[in-house]
């Protein structure tokens, strides 16, 4: 089956960057990793391009995370990425935005790796079948995983909101 790679690019590339952004928390790094995944896909021409792209992207992000872990610079990375993510804004807005993304990241950290991956893949626009292909879960388990992941995300985020309210 011939793949229209131009169409794959149009329908997938931004989703891939967004997916990776929540894995590495660095917009430009996410773009670079997405680019790498896409270039590899163009070279290998897999039959299921979207699932293949996200699987490779996931591995690239995992490699990158290991590299970051080795440098033990999570906090600095977060901080700088928060800077990177901001266009020019007022200081109040900037602080709010930084807090918001920090909360999202911490809430996602409360999920298991598998739940987080399934949730992010769904959020990036993959179908249940594609998510099953990427994660090697049974298609029938995707809904259950998503339900659990969403609940944990909402609960974890809710806890943080309460803590923040208590601090203020």
């Amino acid at each position: 089956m011939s793949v229209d790679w131009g169409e794959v690019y149009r329908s997938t590339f931004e989703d891939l960057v967004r997916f990776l952004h929540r894995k590495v928390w660095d917009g430009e790094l996410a773009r670079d990793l997405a680019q790498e995944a896409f270039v590899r896909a163009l070279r290998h021409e897999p039959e299921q391009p979207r699932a293949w792209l996200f699987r490779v992207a996931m591995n690239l992000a995992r490699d990158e995370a290991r590299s970051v872990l080795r440098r033990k610079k999570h906090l600095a990375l977060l901080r700088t990425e928060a800077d990177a993510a901001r266009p020019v804004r007022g200081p109040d807005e900037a602080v709010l935005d930084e807090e918001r993304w920090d909360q999202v990241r911490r809430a996602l950290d409360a999920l298991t790796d598998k739940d987080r991956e399934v949730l992010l893949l769904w959020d990036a626009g993959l179908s249940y079948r594609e998510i099953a292909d990427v994660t090697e879960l049974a298609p029938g388990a995707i809904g259950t995983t998503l339900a659990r992941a969403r609940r944990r995300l909402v609960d974890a985020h809710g806890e943080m909101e309460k803590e923040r309210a208590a601090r203020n």
Partner: protein
Amino acid sequence: MRHVTDGDLHAYLDGALDQLPDDRGSEVREHLSVCPVCRERLQDEEGLRSRAGEILGHPPLEALALPSFEDLRERAAAPEAGGDPHEGSALEEARTRYRGPIRGIPLAWAATVVLALGVGWMGGEVWRTLPQAPTLPQEGGAGVVNLTAPGAGAGGAQESSVAERAVPTGEPLPGEPREERLQEVPPEARGGEARGADARSGDLPAGAGRGDVIEVQGSRALRAESPAELLERGRMPAPSLAPQTLQATGDLPAREAEMRWPPADAMDEVRPLESSLAVPGLKVISVEWEEWLPGERALHVRQLLSVGDTLELRYLGLLMGMEPHEEARAAMKALVPEGTVDRPLSPAVLEASLPPGWSQVEMRWGRGWLVARAPLPEASIKALLRSLR
């Protein structure tokens, strides 16, 4: 009657019932049509799903310049390098984008190649040459200038090409990638200064190499010396090119005048640099002028990162080193456009002394270079630099 699971409800909400195995999708639809309990649960799960979506939000990617499909196809069509699976890949390119043109070359060799050509600071980037015929630099791009100087010494008035050098032009915004494509030192050029010189500057006077004297603009004869020779004469601070602060050079009485730095007439240009060369929000640990080689100075700002590490910012500008090499500088200015800088204390030389685990990012800054180093990924350093004024 068996109620549907939460997973089934989410599959329903996600429009994925048809993707469930067997005939499960039909069963779920049928059950929901008759079961008020599950319909109520469906409403709860819908609220949960919606809330999760709100929390995730959309990462702000608007400011990112995404590659076009044509760019990606072009990259994919480029031949894959062997060995390192990342070599030649887009990721590797991204990782090296902000690095200097030479990576991993031992600093001693870097200094040797520079000095062996006997053109002092004018040969600061002599190994960064391009093989093609020299052309004039174009605005907004990279060019190659062939430095030629009339020999004014005993050798007569023939034209001697002393070095080719790549001259990056244009002023990328802070954080933007440098566009110039400079060639790395080929392995054979790293084998020694004489071979390096031969490989890079075919127009060198026959037989010229280490130990020879080459006339530059007829104004200054600089003898080619090895770092070891320079060290013996006390002209180089340390083999590793570790910098001394200017205050620390007070034991060299012959250079007292040089230590009055920056000169009063340059302060108007220097003061704004001192005040702007710091990332807002990070504590400044120190600001000092340091000297890596005689006359090769950098404005060095150290800031404290949130996890206790240090961010080093250095400005390498045209002002640095003007005093001891003023004549050569004047010759240089006559040959290359104002604002382009190449010298022994270059981003590439700094990179060669990077501590393990550190990264370096460079960008054009005013009339020189800003070099930022920290034990962080390049992307993180780059992000920090965006907040510079």
